[in-house]
């Protein structure tokens, strides 16, 4: 089914600003779902609060727009209750790693079969441009008028350190990778994380004196490189793209079947 059949057309043009990267993520995500041939009724999309989280309003699945930072906790309830559903959780960088950091690391730890997509624009877009745990030092933001001193998380490392079994990263510039990694993430049996560098021209761009959205996409093009590439060795400042973690580990809902079995025996026995 064409990608556009997955969207709720009546809400278009969407709420996002001109040039906002979140729309590109939406496209890539739907491309992945389309290629996987998922039925609309089998997909539940769960989000928190933020510009990025508004994404669920635009897709014609079961959609759950929850609380800031809590999407993965809601999603855990959905998935653990109905493991046969495909649960996809698009999140903002603030949503995923600031207020939602704890749910993020615990989802990584538990290895429930869901896909978290971190739409990382390195800023709180929805609330008007405060720095996020992914902004990094030196970035200007409304709450960092003298530039930020906060170190940033590396989501890949955070997810890895928390035990995630699939972790990938790319940028909206690399839109085919977006589709590809999300597809692989959904196919992965276990918890998967895809970080997608995205742009907020309205706040991140303006505050940091970036000329326009194209300058932001050029940045993604010029400052990233496939993981393990020679380029990275030559220039350690490059950000790596690719699949960083991909391991098989028994999935949580599957493991719970063992609990049910043990418990049922106890009752009978």
């Amino acid at each position, binding site marked *: 089914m064409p990608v556009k059949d997955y969207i709720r057309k009546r809400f278009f043009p969407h709420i996002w600003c001109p040039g906002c990267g979140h729309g590109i993520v939406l496209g890539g995500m739907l491309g992945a779902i389309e290629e996987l041939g998922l039925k609309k009724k089998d997909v539940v999309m769960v989000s928190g609060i933020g510009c990025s989280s508004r994404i669920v309003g635009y897709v014609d*699945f079961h959609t759950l727009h929850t609380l800031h930072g809590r999407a993965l*906790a809601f999603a855990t*309830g*959905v998935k653990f209750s109905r493991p046969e559903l495909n649960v996809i959780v698009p999140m903002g960088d603030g949503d995923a790693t600031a207020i939602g950091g704890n749910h993020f690391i*615990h989802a990584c730890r538990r290895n429930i079969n869901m896909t978290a997509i971190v739409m990382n624009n390195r800023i709180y877009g929805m609330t008007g441009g405060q720095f996020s745990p992914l902004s990094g030092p030196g970035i200007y933001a409304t709450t960092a008028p003298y530039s930020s001193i906060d170190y940033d998380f590396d989501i890949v490392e955070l997810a890895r350190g928390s035990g995630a079994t699939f972790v990938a990263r790319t940028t909206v510039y690399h839109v085919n990778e977006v589709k590809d990694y999300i597809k692989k993430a959904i196919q992965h049996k276990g918890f998967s994380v895809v970080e997608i560098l995205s742009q907020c021209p309205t706040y991140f761009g303006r505050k940091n004196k970036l000329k326009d959205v194209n300058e932001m996409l050029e940045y993604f093009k010029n400052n990233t490189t496939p993981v393990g590439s020679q380029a990275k060795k030559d220039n350690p400042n490059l950000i790596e793209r690719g699949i960083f973690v991909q391991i098989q580990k028994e999935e949580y809902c599957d493991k719970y079947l063992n609990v049910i079995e043990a418990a049922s025996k106890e009752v009978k026995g």
Partner: protein
Amino acid sequence: MKEKIKFVQGNEACVEGALYAGCNFFAGYPITPSTEIAELLAARLPQSGGKFIQMEDEIASMCAIIGASLTGSKTMTATSGPGFSLKQEAIGYAIMAEIPCVIANVQRGGPSTGTPTHVSQGDVMQARWGTHGDHAIVAMTASNIQDVFEITIEAFNIAETFRTPVILLFDEVVGHMREKLVIPEKEKLQVIERLRTSVPPGTDYHPYFPRKDGRLPMSDFGGEHRYNVTGLFHDMWGFPTDKPEIVHNLMRHLVDKIENDPKHICKTKQYFLEDAKTVLVSYGASARTALEIVNYSRMRDRKVGLLELQTIWPFPKEIVSKICNQAERVIVVEMNMGQVLELVRANVKNPEKVYLCNRYDGNLVNIDDVKNVLRVVEGRGI
């Protein structure tokens, strides 16, 4: 399943009630004095294919039961004071998105960490007002083990009927004391199942458009109908809006469905009220002390009666004012600084005739406490 007689804690009776009502999903985080609910469900739920998950905190637990409820599960969490405070934001979400679920708060001494292993009824007002913004809520309680069982079933029934979170406001004494519990055979007690939409697939389904009787049939996530659920004000399809009329009407709906017809929700127990000159109003563990005193007084031919509240919210105004206005004096017996006292006072003609017998030092209101207040207000000296 045949009738069963057990000797159990209040927390276990709550578990039995939940299972009787069909609860098949629990998410929680341990906290004294509610932990036994989680522990028992961890053992019991998987025995019949239900799901138990220990989450990373109380917030996540609350969110998880909302998510699970949307897929069609009957869900519950349990906590106490500090955890109840943490859940408030997500409770508000369940109110706004009209998701049935049950939250047990086994009350302990507060504020803050307070006295974790001691009893209190200090969360009465928080149950009503703990989350931000206008809203309505259902909160119920019980004073003995059998009632805990039955009220828990009732909580699930109300949650399903009204698509609302329901709070079980137990207390440490009732949660931890053991007493006889008779579990009736299946179907003896009414269990209300979720009302699911009859709108056929492919037809426009309105998850947030109440039927004539005020109920909103649900469609499970994963089913044929796809719709949106949000904590923003929303239209009948569940999509965000800030149109003033829609906001206004949704607010009215959320409050009216609970408060307009409290008869269906409000439960009380009444002891010796017909001719009572002194009415004790109480609930939870304190109602046990109160009842002891009623019996004691009646043996001495003193016309004392007890109105035991089982529904705290919506506050049973009509019953309270009817009964209290008939009495010469009212004594509210509770374990806080007078939270229900104020509610009773606000609903009677002569607030100055409503007295307080309370304790907020971590101990159950005792017999002498009530005797003394009774003696004083009846003018028999102390």
